[in-house]
Structure formats: structure tokens, C-alpha cells
């Protein structure tokens, strides 16, 4: 569901378009009880993270204090308050993957990209994240880069896979 947005883009027209989408989503969800989380999903879907300026719009529209919005947003791992790199790498750290060496894959990615886990590379190309079970345990160890799933990994597959995205 998570979409990758390039950070470089962001002309005024595009920004307006995004905001319009959010506005209409808010109007649509306003009717239902418990609208906040679906709206946050929509924002994350469109922006790749939850920008403060957009959360302010949500605050006014849904009539919720910012503190409550932040409280909810920070509680859930899926939501991010900071922008991500162009490619987000999720390494599954579920049990099946862990047993089959996901930690060594994660370590290798961290070494190759020279970035800490949950961090973004200096050139904003990659964000490296450890995540919960991706539900593809049959292919363990598994990682996703954007929407693409890479399975049956070994640490020395890492450089080659990264090259595809460089």
C-alpha cells in the first residue's frame, strides 16, 4: 500500500493536486466514526509520510487537537512523521526469516549502504527498515524494496540486488 514518492518532485501544481486528494478523502471519511486512522493512511499513501502541514489540515477538518493526531500517528509503526528515501527497503524480521538468517542480510545491507537500520542514506536513495512478518514466510528470508518482494536471500545477494536500484 505504501507508495514511493520521489522527494525531488513537488511543483506547486502537484502539491495542490495532492492536497485536493486529501481534502476529498477527509470529506469522504468525515461521515464515519473513527475517521482519523483511515485519513492518515490516505496521507501516507499519497505523500509517503505524514507532513506536519497536512496534519494541520486534518486537525481543523476533523476537529481534533494536534496532540491527539500525533499521539495516534506515533503509536502505529506503519506511520512515519519523517520523509523516506526514494527506495524503502523493508527487511522482514519475523521469526521464520530470522531463523533463516535475516539478521545477517540486514547487517549486510547496513554495511553496503553505510546507513543504520531505520535510517536513510545521505543521498536520499534508500531507507533501510526492519519490519514485522511480511506474510511471505515460505520464501524466508524476505525483503521488499518498494513493492517488489525479494525472497530466499543470502547476504551475498545483497550487492547485486542493490545495483538494480542504483
Amino acid at each position, binding site marked *: *500500500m*505504501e507508495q514511493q514518492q520521489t522527494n525531488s518532485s513537488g511543483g506547486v501544481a502537484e502539491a495542490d493536486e495532492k492536497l485536493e486528494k486529501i481534502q476529498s478523502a477527509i470529506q469522504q471519511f468525515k461521515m*464515519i*466514526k*473513527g*475517521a*482519523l*486512522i*483511515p485519513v*492518515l*493512511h490516505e496521507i501516507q499513501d499519497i505523500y509517503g509520510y505524514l507532513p506536519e502541514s497536512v496534519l494541520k489540515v486534518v486537525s481543523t477538518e476533523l476537529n481534533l487537537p494536534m496532540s491527539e493526531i500525533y*499521539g*495516534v500517528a506515533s*503509536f*502505529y*509503526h*506503519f*506511520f512515519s512523521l519523517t520523509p523516506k528515501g526514494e527506495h524503502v527497503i523493508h527487511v522482514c*524480521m*519475523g*521469526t*521464520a526469516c*530470522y*531463523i*533463516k538468517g535475516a539478521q*545477517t542480510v540486514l*547487517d*549486510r545491507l547496513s*554495511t553496503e549502504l553505510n546507513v543504520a537500520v531505520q535510517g536513510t542514506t545521505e543521498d536520499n536513495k534508500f531507507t533501510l527498515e526492519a*519490519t*514485522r*512478518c*511480511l*506474510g*511471505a*514466510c*515460505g*520464501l*524466508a528470508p*524476505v525483503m521488499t524494496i518498494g*513493492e*517488489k*518482494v*525479494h*525472497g530466499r536471500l*543470502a*547476504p*551475498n545477494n545483497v550487492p547485486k540486488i542493490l545495483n538494480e536500484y542504483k
Partner: protein
Amino acid sequence: MVCGGTGCTSSDSNRIIDALNQELTNQGIQEQVEVVRTGCFGLCELGPVVIVYPEGIFYSRVEVKDIPDLVEQHLLNGKPYEKKVYEKTKLDGKILNFEETDFYKKQVRIALRNCGIIDPENINEYIASDGYKALGKVLLTMSRQQVIDTMKKSGLRGRGGGGFNTGLKWEFAAKQDKEQKYVICNADEGDPGAFMDRSILEGNPHSVIEAMAIAGFAIGSNQGFIYVRAEYPIAVQRFVKALDQAREYGLLGDNVLGTGFSFNIDVRLGAGAFVCGEETALMHSIEGHRGMPTPKPPFPAVQGLWGQPTIINNVETLANVAQIMLNGADWYASIGTEKSKGTKVFALGGKVVNTGLVEVPMGITLREVIFEIGGGIPGGKKFKAVQTGGPSGGCLTEEHLDCTIDFDTLTSLGSMMGSGGMIIMDEDTCMVDIARFYLDFTRDESCGKCTPCRIGTKRLLEMLDLITEGKATMEDLEKLENLSLQIKNASLCALGQTAPNPVLSTIKFFRDEYMAHIHDQKCPAGVCKSLISYQIDADLCKGCSLCARKCPSNAISGKVKEPFVIDTLACIKCGVCFDVCKFKAVAIV
């Protein structure tokens, strides 16, 4: 049939489908052969999986370049395309139907009945395999009480972890005299290493919709919610599509099948918090708040979503309902054991040959599942332990292999059924490290509301860290056990109450491994970084210099064609040398 489950889709099954369609058109037989994208078939390890009916020939790891030959040999000339026929279906020169393999023979598929068999995106295929017949039967011929009685009599217990009798739960909610009631399907599937709920939603979404409507009728509710993980995009998309189809066919919405019964289902996405799988937390999350548990009672059946009576059922639980309504309570109760009726789906993972999804009758032994269905441990390694029940469960050992699998046996052994992750471990797995792994998970996922869970799991993790670093004393081990017991007693929700289970069960069954870490500062399985070091065996080293070139910290030196050496002080234990050495000269000591 081409598998379109998550496993196979990620190994490119969509391209196989395109290639197949193209080739069929090229050969002019697109009318005679139908290509169907199904849900997960169970043996994801072998993906992409293609099965050709009516013969039931099972092809594994199919690639796009195989397609022309497969079409020509099998579909045009009627001879199986040997190259990709799954090894295990070949016997004495004959090719077996996949249902005769060890992997399938002992399975009884009820919840997974249609997974991998029908096209999940086509409601007509579901209807053709008796879909929505149960809903029709219930609405037209049964009373609410009859539905509940059937459920109670079938003995079905919740598959989401608790194992509470489903019919009883429905009855509690049905008895509440309130205008508005809710039915929730719990599809959060937070248990790491389990993917049965995902596979059911992807492979047979209508079975869940049908069951939710039946539950709605039984308790007197007109509104359902499904809470599904945002991390499961294919499942969400197929479920939404199935909802639209069901509405279009008048099987959902106002006045279902003209009976005056109305039922709607809304989808809510989870946002990656394990604790939201807990029912009270889940309801808070649907209400738009932080997903924190609240004490029970009041139980959701009395006071749930927005204060109204609510039943929450797991996906797999629901996937059994329509079959029970169709075939009767006695049929269902005849499968399984005295107190655990029916079947259970397990996600076999870890160090086992056939990783994948299996559905077995309760009462089967661990040995049958791991060695017969699972095909045993790969690479000639020795079985060490099996972990069931996820972060709330525990590890069982060799001596438990002949125990039967049911709710009560597993609990009495110090593990639990949980949602059905079954992770197999071999001699290369360090049990202290596994305990640390689970604690790291629960500490991270603790919602923080109650102190024993928030602080306690943190302390446990610190002690486990000390042990894996070889810095712990016997006193620490004692503290670890005591604190574990305290957290179990004092926590608010089942997350904290069960979090210490992996610690306690590994201490109980693998005490010697803890001792080795504490007394000898050794990790027998060679996993714990602080306790191992990398060395090059001079006899095996051919002096190719590959490791020295790949080592990120320049810790390896030597002359080409002579044995290389690792400077243990400079080494950061990244293991790259171990991976790259083609001569197995790098050893972990």
C-alpha cells in the same frame, strides 16, 4: 492453475500467467485451456507453482522460458513436461497427482478448502463450489438459536489464539438486548511467522464474508468490520473486490436474498501495531484511537465497539463456519480430538524442507507434521526444537515430537497453539538468541500502558543481552526466571502475560545452553556475536584473497597463494568472509 498468492507473486507468477496466455493464443488453443490465478497453494517454497488439471500435475519453480515447452508437451501432446514436475510427485517412473504426495496425504482442508483451487476474484467460482449456500440455508431455514446451537455443538474454538468456543461467544452477544451490535473479523495477523489469515483472504475471501453475514444473523447485527493489516495489500484488494461482488449479487447489503436481513461490511486498515490484534485494542483502533487494551470484563460480547455488543472472530475461525452450516455440527465434531474439534492451519517455517501452509486434523503429532508433511530438516542437520504460538508460545523439543497437537496438550507442555505459526529449528539455532529475539519483539510491541509489561520486558531483554554477550552470572539467570513469573502475573493484557513464555520454555528445556553462555562464555550454536570469532583454517585456505578484498574492516591479511589470517581485534564479525570463501576455510569458533 497458476498460484497468485503472495509467495508466488513475488517470484513472478504474474509473468508466468501472461506468458501462458500468450503461448495458448499462439498455439490457437486459448478456448480449450483456461488459465486461473488462484490463492496460495501451500507449498510456497516451490513457487511459482503451476498445477494442470484434470491430471493434477504439479509443476514447481516454473520460469517464463519453460512455458512454450510446457504448453507443447503437456497441453498439446498430453505428456507431462518432466523438467519442472515436482520431484516428490515422481515415483518409480510414474507421475502422481499432487494429492498423493506426503505433503498433502495427511492434510484435511476445510478452512483452506478452496485456496489454490478457485479463482478468488470470481464470485461465480466460489458459488459453484457451494459458496453462499450456507448463508442461504441459514437465512431461509434456520432460526438464530439454531445457528448458535449448531456452532456450539460443532465444538469450533477460536483460531486467533485464545481458543474460546465460538458458538458460546456468539450466544453471549445474541442474548444482549441492544439495538446495535457488531461483528468484527480480526485479520491483523500480528504473529510473526504466520500467514494463514493472509492466505485465506487472498485465496478465498468470500468464505470470510459469508461467515460474517451468518454471524451477523446469529447475533442480530447488521454491521461488520474487517480489521486487516495494511502490510497485506493483495489481501486487502481481493477482499474489497469480493465485497463489491457480494453486494452486486445481493448477498450483502440491505435485504439479503429478499429475506429482510441486512448486513454490511466495512474495511479498516491496521497500521502495524502487534497489540492491535488483541480484541479490546483492536476496537479502540477502529474507533480511531491508539490501540491500547482495556481490562476485561466487560467482554466485547457485552460492551464492545462504541459500547455495543460485539463479537470478534479470527479469519481462520470464520473460514470454517459455512462448512459447518452445510455439513452439520456432527460432521465437524467428528474431526479432531475430544476437546479440540476440527482442523488447524499451520504456517510451517524455519529449518524445514517444505515451508508452507498446511491444514491438519487436531490430534496429529508434531512428528507427523514436521517430518512427514514438512519433509524433515534440510541439509542433513539435526532437529532441535519447534516453536509454536509465536511470541506468546514456547519451544518444544525432540522428546515432545510424539505429542498430539491440540489446544490443551500444547498448553500443558508450556507452549500454546496461538494462531498457528510453527517454526522449526535445527542445531544451528541458538535458543538463548531465540528467546532474545522474541523479547525484543514484545518489548518493541508493548503498548506501554502497564508497567510490568513496559518495564519488565525491557529488563528481561537486558538480561538476555548480558547472557548472549557472555557477561551474565547465575544470579542473573535466577532473576530472569523470577521476573518472568512476575510479569506473567501482573500484566494487563495477554501480550504481557505471555511475553515471558519463550524465555521460560527455553530455560526449561535448554538450560545447558544458557549454562554454556554463562559459565563457558560459549555459544554452542555459533550464533551470538560476542561469543564467537572468525578464523581461517590454514589447511583449507587456498590463498585466493577473496575474503581480504571483501572484508569491510581490512581485518584480513596475507599473501596470495598462502593462507590468510584474520586479525580478531579489527574484525567486526560481519561474516562476509564466511559467506564468500569458496573453500569453506573460514570457521566460526
